[in-house]
Each structure stands twice: as structure tokens, then as C-alpha cells.
């Protein structure tokens, strides 16, 4: 803040007219940049930050700290009219709220190794081996810039039993040590029922009526015991809300959607020989994904400028239509369409008083569709939550932590073999949907407490006592962060905007919204037309995805 004036010399941009200007390099923005450039659009892709990825970036510990705590830019100026355009200053919201960051370890290790960490902002997040994200990566050509590794194990947290492997395949059911024989039989039979339903050659199908009823009712109808129900709903279908709690449940999964989730999960297991489980994670972190799409876009001619804040919108004085943006460098650039990442908002029209300006237009611009909140937490430890397992996912089903827990909590532990942290350290991500920040933090903290030892700040004795008492020592947290993000949906308008990271573990919904947005912007264009790229060397496996073994 000491040198607000031009910390970097802004480069002039030439040309100044584009088909599309995109602000922010989050996943959705990058995918649209790649998709639009693939169909020949001229694009200017800007990011005010010095790094790629926006809400989906992977950052060093220091960068992450300053990013999470960055203040919102004040609505400094109101709209003003200069020359032919109405100039309307943009407000940039901070990427999150209620951030709490704690450097719990007094040693200098973390500070010295800050750069060796690459921590995801939108975590926990992974890909199912068989989900559409993988298909999109291959189709778009972004896969050639990425390398993945399988998540070794998937766990579900049980109220009395701690972590149990998710019995997610025939082999896993066979090996499972916690299910009774009868439960093994019931679960496998249900998997077979689903397979049979999905197999076109089979006559026996789940009835249409059953497909429309809630999945939880269908599971009850199949006489599955609560334990199996919980595994299917929360650990495999990854449902967020307690399906047995009619009041709190905001999203009741239908049988047909449940079946689709199961199908995706089971076809993910064993799709790639090197990935034992259902999930994949990109080496160097999730921030690699938007970068890969940006590289695709750049190959097709998209122009990239980082560290380039956009300060104002330029609107036509007469009809109020969007014309372009004014950059921090003072330069005005113009385009037919504009996409803003979800951190940008437009000041309420009440503060704007340009005469004769169609006020309702700005009103629309300033309204965002907010669908609740997601609480995220990050912990760094020196040991794994499960001995001998480096990378794993954990689901805490509703009511597994305390009776009032109405949402499930997802967690992901990533170790140093994914090149996101120094050897011997682990990053754990947690997330859950919530109604307010307090609830969200309570949920995450109890999930963390179930797996980890959170030292009371400044009191090192408490750590020791925990260690000596408990039989299996829980990993001690060296560093932690909590933050809350509003769930902002994508929007297609005069000025379109992309969604914030959602509460899901994978990217399917986000990419679905992105594809939809692209379709609205370019109704006559195909989303990544199938074009073979001869310049791409294809030394990957059959699936076009590179997996590190």
C-alpha cells in the first residue's frame, strides 16, 4: 500500500478491439478462453493477480495468506461520463471472508519453506477417473500439459470406528475388515443391481417410478441397513445434505441421479491401471488445470496479460450497452462480450447518478445469484492421518461427528509425492456447505479434531499431553486456515460472470455451468470441436491422460 502508484510498468495492449475480454484466470474463465479461441474468437485474457488461476490457484503459503486476507477494493469512484462512454468503476470483492490463519508451529520451517508449498485455494478437489472433466481435458488438448496421480485410498469416517475404507468396488468389499458378511452381500448386490440397470443388454431395470423417488427412499425400499445407506449416499454419491433430515436437507437426491453418481464412481475405479481408486489429482496442484487451459488458448492466439487490474466498465452513453473496459494502465480496450470472474461486482445503481442512463441495466449487473456458502479449511501436518497412505480422501457423513451435523464434510490429504509440499509434510483440505460462517467453522473444526491435533495457540504443553494420552497419535497441525466463500452462480447477461468454486469434490457441476455459459454466448459454436491436433505428440496412454505411477 505504500506504493500504490504503478508498482509495475503496465504494457500497452495492441490491438484494442477483441471479440471477447475475460477478466480472471479461474477454471471457468480459462476453459471459456480455450473453447472460444478454439472456434476462432479473438480474446484478451486479463488477470489482476500475478498468478494464474484466480479462485482455483495453487499458491505458496505466504501468497495464500496475503491473498485470503486481501481487502476489498473500495467503491472508490462513482460512475462518470467522459467522452462517449459512461465509465462505471468495478468493485473487487475479496476472494473469501472470515479468514482465520494460524501459524501454529513456532519453528521457522514453514516460513523458510513457504515457496515449496503449492496450496489449493478451491480445495478439497479431485477428479473422478471417469468423469467428464477427464474427457474435457483430453478433448480440449489441455491434458498434454498435465500429469496426474491416483488418490491411494478413500475413507469414510464412522462415528464410533474412525476411518474406514470406502467399500467402493468388488475387491474393496472383499478386502473390507469392518463390514459384516451380510453387509458385504447386500452392498455388492446393490452394485450389481445398478450395473444391470445400466447395462443395455439386460432386461431387468429399475422401474421408472423408483427412478423418480428420492434415492434414500429407494435404498430403504431395497432394505439396505443404515450403514450401507450412509456409505452409498455420502461416501460414493457424495451427497452434501443429510437425506434423512427433511428440514435441513436442501437438496434431496433422486434415484436416477444417485444411480448416475454410483455409475461414475464405479467406472472410475480401475479405469487407469496406475490409479487404484476412483480419484485423480494433478501433480503440482489444482492450479495446474486453469493454466493448462490458458496454454491451450494461448496456442490459438489468445492474448494474456497478468497483473493487469480492470478498473472500470465502459458503457454506451445512449443505449447503455457494454463497450469495453478501462485497464489500470489507463488504456481502454473494447470487445463484443465480457466475462468477469465472480469477485467483481458493480456498485449498486443507487450510488450512480449519470443522467439519462438506463438505471435498470446496472441494477441487473449488480445482482448476483448467491446459493449459500461453503466453508473451507486447510491444515499442514508432518504426518499422515493414516500410516503408509500419502494421498487419500475422507468423507464425514452427516451426524457422524455430532447429532446436529446436517451436511457432510469432504476432506483430502495430499502428500509430497504430488509435488505440492516438502517431503515429510502433508496438506489436508476440508470443505462443507453451511448457512453461516460460525456453523461452517464449527463443522470443519470438529472434522479436523477427529483426525488431527489442533494445538491451542501458544500452549505447547497441551500438544504433549495429547500425544502421550491417545493410543494412536493424531498428526499435529503446523499451520491452518479457515475461510468462507459465497457460492456465486454463473450468469449470462450483457456482462457474463463465472461461478465461484462449489462445495463438490470434483469439477463436473462447474464445468457444466461453464459449458452452458459458452453455449449462451456462442449459440452456434461447438464447445471444443473435435479437431485432431497434429502438433501434439501423443505419447500418453489410450485415454490421452498421463498418469504418474
Amino acid at each position, binding site marked *: 500500500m505504500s506504493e500504490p502508484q504503478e508498482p509495475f510498468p503496465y504494457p500497452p495492449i495492441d490491438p484494442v478491439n477483441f471479440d471477447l475480454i475475460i477478466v480472471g484466470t479461474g477454471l471457468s474463465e480459462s476453459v471459456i478462453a480455450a473453447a472460444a479461441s478454439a472456434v476462432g474468437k479473438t480474446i484478451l485474457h486479463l488477470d489482476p493477480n500475478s498468478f494464474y488461476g484466480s479462485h482455483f490457484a495453487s499458491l505458496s503459503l505466504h501468497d495464500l495468506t496475503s491473498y485470503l486476507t486481501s481487502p476489498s477494493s473500495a467503491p472508490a469512484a462513482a460512475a462518470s461520463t467522459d467522452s462517449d462512454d459512461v465509465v462505471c468503476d468495478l468493485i473487487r470483492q475479496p476472494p473469501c471472508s472470515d479468514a482465520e490463519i494460524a501459524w501454529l508451529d513456532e519453528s521457522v520451517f514453514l516460513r523458510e519453506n513457504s515457496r515449496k508449498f503449492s496450496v489449493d485455494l478451491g480445495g478439497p478437489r479431485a477428479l473422478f477417473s471417469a468423469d467428464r472433466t477427464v474427457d474435457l481435458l483430453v478433448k480440449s488438448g489441455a491434458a498434454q500439459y498435465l500429469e496426474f496421480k491416483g488418490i491411494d485410498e478413500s475413507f469414510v469416517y464412522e462415528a464410533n470406528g474412525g476411518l474406514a475404507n470406502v467399500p467402493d468396488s468388488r*475387491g474393496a468389499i472383499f478386502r473390507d475388515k469392518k463390514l459384516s*458378511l*451380510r453387509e458385504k*452381500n447386500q452392498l455388492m448386490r446393490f452394485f450389481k443391481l445398478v450395473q444391470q440397470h445400466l447395462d443395455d443388454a439386460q432386461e431387468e431395470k429399475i422401474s421408472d417410478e423408483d427412478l423418480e423417488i428420492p434415492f434414500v427412499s429407494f435404498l430403504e425400499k431395497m432394505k439396505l441397513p443404515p450403514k450401507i445407506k450412509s456409505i452409498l449416499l455420502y461416501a460414493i454419491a457424495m451427497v452434501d445434505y443429510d437425506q434423512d433430515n427433511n428440514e435441513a436437507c436442501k437438496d434431496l437426491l433422486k434415484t436416477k441421479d444417485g444411480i448416475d453418481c454410483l455409475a461414475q464412481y464405479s467406472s472410475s475405479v480401475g479405469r487407469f491401471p496406475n490409479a487404484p481408486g476412483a480419484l485423480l489429482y494433478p501433480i503440482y496442484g489444482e492450479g495446474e488445470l486453469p493454466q493448462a487451459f490458458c496454454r491451450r488458448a494461448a496456442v490459438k492466439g489468445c492474448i494474456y496479460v497478468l497483473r493487469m487490474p480492470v478498473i472500470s466498465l465502459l458503457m454506451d452513453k445512449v443505449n447503455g450497452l457494454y463497450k469495453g473496459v478501462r485497464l489500470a494502465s489507463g488504456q481502454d480496450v473494447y470487445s463484443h462480450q465480457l466475462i468477469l470472474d465472480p469477485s467483481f461486482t458493480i456498485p449498486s445503481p443507487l450510488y450512480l447518478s449519470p443522467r439519462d442512463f438506463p438505471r435498470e441495466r446496472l441494477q441487473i449487473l449488480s445482482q448476483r445469484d448467491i446459493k449459500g456458502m461453503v466453508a473451507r479449511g486447510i491444515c499442514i501436518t508432518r504426518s499422515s492421518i493414516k500410516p503408509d497412505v500419502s494421498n487419500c480422501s475422507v468423507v464425514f457423513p452427516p451426524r457422524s461427528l455430532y447429532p446436529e451435523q446436517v451436511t457432510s464434510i469432504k476432506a483430502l490429504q495430499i502428500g509430497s509425492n504430488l509435488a505440492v509440499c516438502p517431503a515429510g509434510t502433508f496438506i489436508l483440505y476440508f470443505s462443507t456447505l453451511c448457512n453461516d460462517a460460525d456453523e461452517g467453522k464449527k463443522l470443519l473444526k470438529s472434522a479436523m479434531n477427529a483426525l488431527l491435533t489442533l494445538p491451542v495457540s501458544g500452549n505447547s504443553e497441551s500438544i504433549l499431553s495429547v500425544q502421550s494420552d491417545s493410543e494412536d497419535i493424531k498428526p499435529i497441525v503446523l499451520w491452518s486456515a479457515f475461510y468462507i466463500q459465497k457460492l456465486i452462480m454463473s450468469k449470462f447477461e450483457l456482462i457474463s460472470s463465472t461461478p465461484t468454486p462449489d462445495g463438490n469434490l470434483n469439477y463436473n457441476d462447474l464445468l457444466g455451468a461453464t459449458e452452458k455459459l459458452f453455449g449462451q454466448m456462442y449459440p452456434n459454436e461447438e464447445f471444443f470441436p473435435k479437431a485432431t491436433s497434429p502438433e501434439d505428440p501423443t505419447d500418453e496412454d489410450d485415454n490421452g491422460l498421463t498418469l504418474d505411477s
Partner: protein
Amino acid sequence: MHGRPRKALQEEDAAASAAKAEKLRSLQAQFLANHHNRTYSKEALDVSTKLLEVNPECYTAWNYRKLAVQHLLSNSDPDPHSIFHDELKLVESALRKNFKSYGAWHHRKWVLSKGHSSIDNEMRLLNGFQKADPRNFHAWNYRRFVAELMKRSDEDELKYTEEVIGANFSNYSAWHNRSVLLSNLLKRKAEGYFPKEKVLEEEFEHVHNAIFTDPDDQSGWFYHLWLIDQTVKTDAPLLVSSWPSHRSNITLIMDNGLHGCGLSLLNGTLSDTGTLPIILYFNQAVEGINTSTVTIESELLKEELVWKPLSMNKSNTAHVWVVYLNLGNMELQPSKTYYVEINIGHSKGIVSSNGNHYGAPSQISFKVVVQTAYTEPTEGHGGKRTTWKDTNFQKIDHFQESDSIVTADQNDLIPTTSNWCTEEIVEEITKFRDLLSEYDCKIGKLTLARLLTALDMLSSQHDGRKSNTEEVLQLYIDLMKLDPTHSLYYKDEHSLISLNWITSTRDSLLPYCHYYEDATETITGYVCLRLQNLSLSRMGSIENLLWVQMLDLSHNELRSIEGLEAMQLLSCLNLSHNKFGSFTALGPLRLLKSLKVLNISYNELGFHSIDTTRYLSSSPVVHTEEFAWDRFEILTGSINATKFWEAFLIFGSLALTELNITGNAVADENFRSFLVKVLPTLKWLDDEEIS
């Protein structure tokens, strides 16, 4: 590797395979020329290499390679290491072409067994192949070979099977290897594998996970069956029953009629040869029954005895052994009691076919009493004719003292097994009832039936009860409907269980025992066991029927009478209205020296043009017996009757007096006249007296 549908050949593939065939033909021709000329030059070897790389199935080429190796080794200054190394390399590339090639795997074994090559590489090779196809039994066979060669411990190999099964439990080969390894470890009581009970419990738990996870996958069940067997079985051979049975009284009738001193059993038609058989019935085939392993002490014993195995082939192991006491030329005193004591296994030598020694030495003692009786000689022996009509049989309300000949399950001979066996089987039954309540599957039902049978067998040793028979029978009836393809097997099992139930006690036998009353007979009629109309498809429980002299098995579905040869006292047998399709199926009759009366009417003899049982039978009569062509030709002479040679084999050694063969496709006039010649003793043929 598995479950992939075969793709139809495309046109371009057809052209390619024609070209390949052409190439192969020329290689083959060159190779054969080299082989013929015993050329083992480098060029010649290269030809065989090429041939085997294209077609590893060419066994002749592998043999040629072996000859070539021997040739090269006989040269001056050979380098065995490099010679064998070339062979290993060739095998490896052949296996890459087809890793199910018997010839290639065998060649590799041959090379390694020569001992000039390092075996370190073999595990690496195997791991590659077994990763590509974890079920390939060639690789597993070879693995056992290499493990033995490397002296890899059974424990390590067992761990490997665990890994493979953990990855995918649908793997017969891996489960099988596990059973092989565990057998070894249990046998030598290796550390951690003793006591057997603990190990078996763990294995049951292991396999339950597979069975319950996917009951339709049969590999786990297959291992489970092995485990049940390990739980129930006793290694050492045991005596199951005998005739005469322990503590029985045998009454002999001395016939002082016109025919001189005939000797027969009370209540019986036996036996004008004047011999008394002693039959020993073991639970598994044994060898080494002779006068030193089995000693008989009795006044009745006057000469050296020769024990004979009752076996359909010429092997000297058998379930049943028989010896005949010759009483014909002895001066037996009427009303005197003769004691006979038999001691079995007091000296070593009785060994089962898998090398186990006879367990607990046992003793059988019985009494023989001689009575005199005078029977009115009938007008020529042929006047007496056996009829099987119901009116000739009289129900028995209760056995009389003199019927002590009737014995049932002699379970006092079998030492009781441990409680653990019973408990383990009971636990298994509970588990599978639970599974079946969740999921109805045929193999689950079959296993339950087998477990219940095993339980009955175990508990009958304690208290003689077979409380689960009804449920077991019902399970097999359900299975016949549920799984029609295997209904014959279920029917056989059903027959065995029914017979076991019927023969288990004297009381259960009673309803099936009748007195046969012949109008001409002066003394009480003898006991006939009537097992008609029971849908029997297979004979069993013969060990409980050694006493039977007259047996009616008519109106069943029998195709074979395997095991019947043990019934050495049998003189009248009714097999009419069954499903015998060939004379081969009647093979056991050849060993029934007392058989006089046989009814095989209304079967399917001669109905099938090709006798398939000849290939199925464990004892193909044809190959084991020296065929008396001379006699056959003299008998058949004018008639073109070579098609009767099977019948000749069966009847040629019997001395039947009555035979009924009507209602069979084979029974035409030619055949009848042939029979009359073959059986000079015959008095009645098809209810007609032979003049």
C-alpha cells in the same frame, strides 16, 4: 484376458492369415527336413527358432530343440550356459506370442531342470506374466516348479496368493495354489500353521468374504469345499464295516439231503461251495491287507487264507477286501459254537492310496453255530423259480432273534471326531442359512446340503441321529428344479442321502425288509431287502448292506451299480425297470460269485448303439480283462455275435440259474441262444424253463 468376446475375422485379416500360413508352411517344411536329417547347424536352429516364434504350438519343434541341445552339449568344449540361455530366450519370446503354450512352458521346465541356468530371472518373468493374466494356470504351475527349485518358502508363496486374491478373488488358480501350500504347511505343522483348527478357522473367514461379496462367483465356493473337506476328513484309513459284523452270531445250516453236505446260511440261499466270506469295508481304498496285517484266530481256520481286493480294475488297492473260509471239507459239529476273532492293523502295512497308515487297530469277533436240517430235495433244482411278485413277500413287523444277520450302520467302528469339527460345521451352517435368507443361490443351497450331511455324519458318530436328512433331501429336490442342467448330479446325491437314511439303523431298515416265501421252502423264508420305487439313480451305503442276500432294486433310475461288488452274499438281484444302457454298467456283477438269480428285464440294454459308459467308467472292463476269445468263438460259432462280447464278459464268469432279460432292445432270439450257451448253469431264462 477373460470374458472378452471373440471378434469375427475381417476380410483383410483373412488375407493376412493366409500369408502367415504360407510363411509357416515353408518354415515348417524346412524345419522338418532338418529334423529328419538331424541337422543341428546354426542355420537349422534358426529355422526352428523362427518357426517357434510364429507358432509356439509346434511340439515337434520343441522336441527338436531338445535333441539339438543334447547334440551341442556332446560337442567338444560345449558352453552349456550359453546353449541353455538361448533356449530360455526362445521360450520367452514364444510365450510372448502365446503364453498358454504347453510346449513352451514345458521346454522351459526342461531347460531349468538341467541346472545350468540361473533361476533368479524366473520370478521376474513370472511376475510379468502373472500380472498380465493372474489366472493363467500355466504360469501358476510353473510358479510352483520355480518356487520349489528356488526353495522359496511356502509362507512367502502363500502371501503371494493372498495379494493376488485381494486384487481379484475370482481366481481359481490362486485359491487352488493356496490349498496346495496350506496342505504342505499343515502337514508339516509349520510354525504359525498349528494347530490345524486355528488355521482352518482363519481360512474359512477369508473365503467367507469372497462368497458373501459375490455368491455367484464360484472360485470361492470351490475353496470352501476344500476347507469343509479338511475339517471333516480323517487322514488315516478306517474300517467302516464288516461282514460278519462285530459280536454277531452266524448260523450255518448243514444240509444232509441227497446232495450231500451242502452248507448254507440260515435265512439264506448260500452257498453250495461251502465257504464263508469275511468282508472288510474301509472308508478309503487301502492296500496291504494280508495275513500279517489282518490276523484271524479260529478253530475254523485250517489253511492259509488269501485276501482279495474287490476292485474293478487290477489294482491292489480297494475299499473292500474279502477272504473265504473254506468250511466244505471240515467236520463241523452241530450245535457247537465256533469263535472267530479278527485283528486288524495290529502290525503295520495297511496303507491308503495317499500314503496314510491305518489308524486305530481294531478287532472283530463273531460266533458261528452249525445246525443240521434236512430239506426235501425238489424235483431237479430248476423246479424252484424266484418270483419278485409282491405276493411272495411278507412284511416284517419286527426282526427275530435269527435275523441278527441284518446289520445297519456300524458306527462303533469309527472313532469319534473332535468337538471342534462339529462346532465349525454348525457355525458354517448358521452362516449359510443367513446368506440364503438374503440371497437365494443354488451353490449356497448345495453347500448347505453338504454341510448338513457332514453334520449328520459327525453327530451320528455320537448319538446315531441324522436329524437333518429331511431338509437335505428337500434341498436336493429344490436344486433339481432350480438347476435342471445338473439335475442328474442332484438326483445322485438325493439317492445317496436316501439310502444312507434307510440303512442307518435296524429300525429304519425294517419297512424295507420282507420275508421271501417260496411255496416249496420248508424253513422260514429269508430276508429280502426291497428298495423299489425310490427314484434311486445311484447305489450307496453298501457298507451297511453287506448282509443282503436278496435285493430288489426294481423300478428305480439306476444307470450303474458301482460298489455293489462288495455285497458278496448276494444271490438274488432284481434290477428290472431301471435305466441300464449297457452291459459294461453291470460290470460289478462279475465279482458276485454267489449270484444265482438276476432280473435285468425292462432296461435299455442294446438300446444305445454306442456305449458311452465305457469311456466314463473308472474301470473300463475292456482293457483290464483278458478276453477269452477262444471260448467266445466256440460259443458264438455260427452266429455273427461279436456284438455280444460285452455280455460275454459279464455273464461268462457267472453261474446264474435264473436270468430275465426281456424288455431290452438286445434281447432277440440270437442273443437268447447265445446266453444259453454262455450260461450252462441256467435253468430259467425269461420265465421259461430251459429244457
